[in-house]
Structures are given as C-alpha cells and as structure tokens.
C-alpha cells in the first residue's frame, strides 16, 4: 500500500508534465485544426534557456525562470509568424509539415550549440523532499503538481470567465463567424500560440531537473503528451489533463511492477489499445456532439 501511494504521487507528478504539454497540443489544435509536431520543442527550448540563464550565466533561479518564460513568449510569436501564419489559408497538411520542419530545425540548432551531451539543471529547492507517513514527497514533483493545479485553475477561469477567453473559444469553434463579429482572428491564434509555448515551456522548466536537458527531451515529452490527448479524446481540454495524469500513473506503475527499461513502452501500449478499442478517447462523445 505504501508503495502504491508512493507510485501514485510520482505518477501524478510526471503526469502533470504530460498534461501541461497535452494542453498546449489541444489548444493549438482547436485554434488551427492542426497538430503541432513541434510542441515538445517548446519544453526543450525552455529547458535550454534555463541552462543558459541559471547554469551558464549563474543567475538566480527565479530570474532565470522568468527570463525563460519571457523567451518562450517571444518564441511563440516567432513560431506563429514563421511556421503557421504564412500557411493559414492552406489545408492542414502543409502546416503539419511546417511544424515538423520547425521541430527538426530547432532540435538541430540546439545540437549545434550544446552538442549531444545532456545538460544538468539543479532542482528548485535545496531540500530534496520530505516524508509524510510512509510516502516520500520529492519537492520538485510537489512543485510540478502545485504549478499544474494553479495553471489549470487559471485556465478554467480565463476561458470561462473572461471575454478574451470566450473570443478564443469562438475563434476555435468557427473562425469565419468570429471574423464576421469583429473578433481579430489572427491575434486570437497568436495568443493561442504564445500561451501554448508558455505552458509547454513551463513544463520543460519544471521537468528539466528530473530528466536531463537534452535535444531528445522534446520528442519524448511530445509523444507522451500526444498519447495523453488520444487517451483523453482529441481536442478535449479536460481530457488532455486527465489523459496526461493517467499516462503518468500508468507508466510509473508499469515501471515499478513490470519492467523499468520498458517504461516508455507502456505509454505507447496504452496509446495503441486506445486507438484500437476506443479511438474517440475517454471524453470522445462530447467531441462528437459538437461536430
């Protein structure tokens, strides 16, 4: 039982990271009808920015995190203008290829700058963690869970209770109608990209001390997040969060009880099972109703 609680904590911690990245996937998908294959690189770039500011330059952690997030906002703008905007009137295929190209470009830029060796980023807190009863709570995992809760709460408030949130929703539901009402569609999509880059970047900053900071981290995280969105039901915000958490828990339990080397394999096993037996995901009906 103690082990179960411990694994649950760890699983939810890592699952929170998948949930954040999956959220970024879903928001961009809803706004542009395109899967952004460079989503994982949002996390990777932010983690490398942290290495630059906190390790290379030795600046304080909080300042480095703020600067990295600022950098991600700029990255989101550039990404939107460079990768999506010129192709916005085309079908989804050129845009998807464009995001794949962006992913390759960014990954190899980091490879050229930092080489293939993984970089190390220290955890945020001096105290590595503490025990509550039999469960050891790692402070970095606690931070990840706390940030995710705050962010999900913020996002709920933002989308449900602000006019801007409603305009973003309207844009994702019917762009032409939104433009007829005077909603600046291009600006709404820009905001979506920036927000998506920010939460992806935040996930990268949070997970960097747990994983190593490497050029592969984006791809790994993105694949897990992609699996999470399939589990949750593609395009569903709540589904992405629950899918991400579920995936984190599943792979943690799988690693503990079945096999550590096959840890990543469990995510894809679950992905395949869902695609075969429940392709609409956990929250699939809601998406179907909307169509």
């Amino acid at each position, binding site marked *: 039982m103690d082990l179960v609680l411990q694994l649950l904590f760890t699983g939810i911690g890592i699952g929170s990271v998948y949930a954040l990245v999956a959220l970024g996937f879903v928001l961009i998908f809803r706004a542009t009808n395109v899967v952004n294959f460079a989503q994982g690189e949002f996390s990777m770039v932010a983690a490398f920015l942290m290495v630059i500011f906190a390790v290379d330059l030795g600046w304080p952690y909080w300042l480095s995190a703020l600067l990295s997030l600022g950098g991600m906002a700029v990255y989101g703008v550039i990404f939107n203008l460079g990768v999506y905007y010129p192709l916005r009137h085309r079908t989804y295929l050129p845009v998807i290829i464009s995001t794949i190209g962006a992913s390759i470009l960014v990954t190899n830029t980091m490879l050229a700058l930092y080489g293939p060796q993984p970089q190390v980023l220290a955890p945020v807190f001096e105290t590595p963690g503490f025990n509550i009863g039999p469960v050891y709570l790692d402070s970095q995992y606690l931070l990840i869970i706390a940030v995710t809760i705050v962010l999900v709460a913020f996002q709920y408030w933002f989308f449900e209770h602000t006019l801007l949130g409603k305009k973003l929703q309207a844009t994702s539901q019917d762009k*032409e*109608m939104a433009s007829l009402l*005077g909603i600046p569609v291009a600006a709404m999509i820009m905001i979506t990209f920036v927000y998506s880059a920010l939460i992806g970047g935040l996930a990268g900053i949070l997970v960097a001390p747990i994983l190593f900071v490497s050029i592969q981290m984006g791809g790994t995280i993105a694949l897990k997040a992609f699996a999470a969105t399939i589990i949750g039901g593609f395009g569903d915000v709540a589904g992405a969060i629950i899918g991400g958490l579920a995936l984190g828990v599943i792979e943690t339990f799988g690693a503990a009880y079945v096999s550590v080397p096959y840890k990543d394999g469990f995510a894809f096993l679950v992905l395949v099972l869902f695609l075969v037996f429940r392709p609409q995901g956990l929250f699939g009906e809601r998406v179907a109703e909307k169509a």
Partner: protein
Amino acid sequence: MPLIECKDLVVRYGEIEALHGLSIAVEAGEVVTLLGGNGAGKSTTLRSISGLAKPAAGDILFEGQSILGLGPEEIVRRGIAHVPEGRRVFPGLSARENIMLGASNRKGLSKAQIQREADEMFDLFADIRPFADALGWTLSGGQQQMVAVARGLMAQPKLLLLDEPSLGLAPVIVQKVFAIIGQIRERGTTVLLVEQNARMGLSVADRGYVLETGRLVLTGNPAELWANEDIRAAYLGGHSRAKAAAG
C-alpha cells in the same frame, strides 16, 4: 447617397462566375430584400459586402466610401453586421455568450456593459430568455436563429445583412422571426434581407430585387413585384409550381 451601393459586382468561385456585374443600392432606413432561387447569387452578394467573398471586379461603397478589399473584421467595425446563412451559432458557447460576442466590433466596452446589453436583447427575443445559459448546439433551429439575429444587433450596425433567416424553420417560428425583423425596422436599422420565401421577404420590405443566376432581373416595391405574374410563378414561389418542383 445610398447607405450601401454595389456597383457592377463580379464574383467568381474558381471557374464559376457567381455574380456577373450586379448593381444594387440600399438607402438608410430601408428594408430591402433580395429574392431569387438557388444559385441566383443572393448569398454571394451579402458575402461580398461583409468581406467574406472577394469580388473580381466592381466596387462596394458604404456611406460613400469603398470597402472593397477590406477584411470582415474591419467591415463590421464600420457598421455592417452579417447574420450568415445557417445561423452559425458557436456550438460550445451559451446563448448569452454568443450574443455578448456580437459586440466584439465595438471598442472600449466593459464586460458588465456588454452583459447588460445582452440581457436587454432578451426583451426583444423573449422566447430565448429561458435558454440564455444553454449551449449553442443544444438550441433548436428557431432559437439559434434568434440568437444569431440578436448577436448581429449587438454590433449596433448601421446595416444588418440577414441571410435566409427562415431557412429550415417551422412556419410559426418563421412568423416570429419576421415579427422581429419588423421590430428591427422600427428601430431604424437598415436591413438587406436575403430570402427564398418571397412572401415573407416582401412582407417586411420596402423594396425588392429579384436575381437570377448572378444578374438583376427585376426591381420594385413589394406590390409591383407581387403583381408580376411571371415573376410570381418563377421566383416568388410561396406556393407556386416552381417552389413545389424545387421542394
């Protein structure tokens, strides 16, 4: 000076020419209806005015100024609201939220103010007041139409473009929608109305234009149009043979 004037408008969709040099004008305060069968170019005319379709030739003047080439976001800011065919209510937003977003073209409004105006819309559209918090996709066709028109009015347009407001609605609901158009007319809003249901369209209009395959074939006041036997048979359907054959 007419409020809106289309001059020799030509619109092409790929190889197909949907409008071959259409000229129409609507004076401020008028309710004008565009009549004609499927493919006559009625919707294309409205889509050109609101900036959704890009005319290949001709000009569109709003308050004497050309709005040709402007995007829909800019055109609605200038005071032309388009309630498109099919209602296009945002499915995942509530009726009230849909209506509130209608004010997106007006700058510097607080959320509270927009909310107040949206609530006032439910005085005009009393039938949808009980469904204010229901999501768009759960509403019936008639309720969606009322939300769509209310949303259009929230823009406080000088010109309201209404595309087929009666489409797919039960006759009793059609009566209600047209009663509302009558009220909009009394508020002094200029309306350009596209209708296949000619009887209803003419019942609220000051004038009508009859279109056939992208050309203007007849214009006049409702009584004149209604008096023309050929036209009545061919376009003003109602219960005529043409309508029966099409239906």
